[in-house]
């Protein structure tokens, strides 16, 4: 790569020894179109978000220095805690369920099944569909009286549910239907939030399936043949071969699903209504809270940035934590 060391006749530019600065500037000419955009629309806004979180902002105008005071306000902001709780519910339901379902389907699809291509196409279809269309169609599916889903659960002998309009926690509802007294604080996410989780799972499953399929196809067939000859059963084969060898993929899927789930916004924004985040605030999530503070109610962009940075710290620390803890147990073949 070091052109300076080679004698050149054909190209005069190369016969001169390019200095460090020259090389740097030359490379910058190629990087600049991308770099300018990334710096202006990514780096600077991110730095600005830090900056503005130390100021009081009203209607988009800075009105005073707050220092860390706004971060302190977060601690006693019940709406913030509520949206953090709802977001956490969203993540801890989405990640394991998505992982479980997509791994099972990927393993089944990997069994040299006929028409694999057709299934792959179908499972992946929701991933390329816009979230706005997904929200509209699922809102219709969840309609309490005219929705398809209530017709389906009705055939299973379940009374029609309110879905997106149901603020009761799902555990409370289950306990109530079983006639058990249940503490309110253990009620769990509202059925409305669970409905959004289901829609989100449906939309994202195909992506994880494709990632798992790619991972599974990287496992050498010989391992399975050896296991079969040694008389290993299916369950044993899974735990001794598939699971350890797929762990880098699992690791990736868990991290990505977690990061993306923490940022849920569009489905909540479009599927819950008047006011968004309803019923009774049980679907209000962090990013919607940021949006509401920063754009809808009074342009309090300083406080919105505080919440956004909390979200960032959560996402960042989860990534670092998972990297540290899980990577130790991940097998790389």
């Amino acid at each position, binding site marked *: 790569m070091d052109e300076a060391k080679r004698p050149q006749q054909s190209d005069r530019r190369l016969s001169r020894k390019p200095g460090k600065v020259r090389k740097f500037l030359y490379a910058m000419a190629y990087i600049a*179109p*991308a770099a300018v955009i990334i710096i202006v629309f990514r780096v600077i806004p991110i730095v600005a978000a830090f900056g503005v979180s130390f100021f009081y902002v009203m209607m988009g105008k800075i009105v005073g220095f707050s220092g860390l005071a706004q971060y302190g306000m977060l601690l006693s902001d019940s709406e913030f805690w509520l949206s953090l709780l709802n977001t956490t519910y969203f993540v801890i339901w989405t990640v394991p369920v998505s992982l479980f379902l997509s791994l099972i389907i990927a393993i089944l699809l990997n069994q040299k099944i006929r028409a694999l291509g057709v299934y792959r196409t179908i499972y992946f279809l929701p991933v390329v569909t816009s979230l*706005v269309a997904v929200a509209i169609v699922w809102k219709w599916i969840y309609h309490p009286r005219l929705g398809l889903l209530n017709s389906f659960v009705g055939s299973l002998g379940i009374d029609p549910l309110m879905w997106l309009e149901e603020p009761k926690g799902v555990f409370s509802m289950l306990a109530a239907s079983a006639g058990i007294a249940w503490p309110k604080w253990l009620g769990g996410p509202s059925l409305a939030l669970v409905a959004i989780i289901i829609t989100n799972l449906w939309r994202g499953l195909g992506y994880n399936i494709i990632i798992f399929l790619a991972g599974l196809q990287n496992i050498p067939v010989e391992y399975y043949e050896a296991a079969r000859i040694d008389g290993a059963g299916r369950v044993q084969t899974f735990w001794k071969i598939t699971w350890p060898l797929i762990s880098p993929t699992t690791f990736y899927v868990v991290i990505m699903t977690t990061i993306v789930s923490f940022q849920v916004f569009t489905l909540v924004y479009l599927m819950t209504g008047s006011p968004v985040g309803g019923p009774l605030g049980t679907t209000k999530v962090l990013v919607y809270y940021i949006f509401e503070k*920063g754009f809808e109610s009074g342009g309090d962009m300083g406080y919105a940035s505080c919440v*956004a940075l909390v979200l960032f710290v959560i996402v960042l620390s989860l990534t670092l934590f998972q990297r540290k803890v899980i990577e130790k147990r991940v097998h790389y073949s």
Partner: protein
Amino acid sequence: MKYLRRIPIHLIIVIGAITMILPFIWMLSTSFKTPQATFIPPNFFELRPTWIPDEVILTNYVEAWHEVPFPRYFLNTIIMAGCIVAGVLVTSSLAAYAFAKFDFWGRETIFVFFLSMMIVPQAVYLVPSFIILSGLGWVDTYLALIVPWLAQIFSIFLLRQQFRTIPDDYYDAALIDGCSRLGFLWRVLVPLSKPTLITIGLFALLGSWNTFIWPLIMTNSDKLRPIQVGLSYFAQEQGTEYGLMMAAATFCVTPVIIIYFIAQRQVIESYAKSGIKG
């Protein structure tokens, strides 16, 4: 015997696939229904009239098309998507080339710094981006929709990976033979990297077709809004014209689904590739 053992496998896969596809069928089915038909509670296990309406109408499509200025929204999206796809291909190729083949001070540091920007949630930079765009006087212009998306870090990353698989010997040989550096990118790297460039183009295309939050915030006039924002009016509306809503959703997803069906192998492999970096 072996065949019988495989029945449960097929059953799970088929049930899953039906779950994936039913919302689309239900969307289509409703879009052809008369308003009266949409007010009859459906029966999940009944083909008619739940799945196949007794009376098929097309007026929902006509009305939805005119209820909000969809022709304008489509035009806006096509302009936006076209510029972004072309721009991303150019900026990513140039930057990835430098990061892959040039030897300069700070190469890895700058690259890793850019990559680290990807982990920052959009919610963090959305508010300041809005402030910057208003400062530039770009809010509610095409510039606000297009320029910030002309460079995409992940595309640079993918393309750099690809360029690095092409031996440096080619690069050295080409330069010795008098090929300019830009010429090497255009004549050698680009033709050898077509699949990755298609991947990047597809991501840019799907991304700009489906983008919603950004244009929602950065534009406020109908003249500039893209289709997803137009479609969202149907979601927020408390109205009861379900046929119209489903018709609007249908024609907004159809172009992407057509592209997907034509290029499904490339699309799926692109996404599969995107996960390898784990």
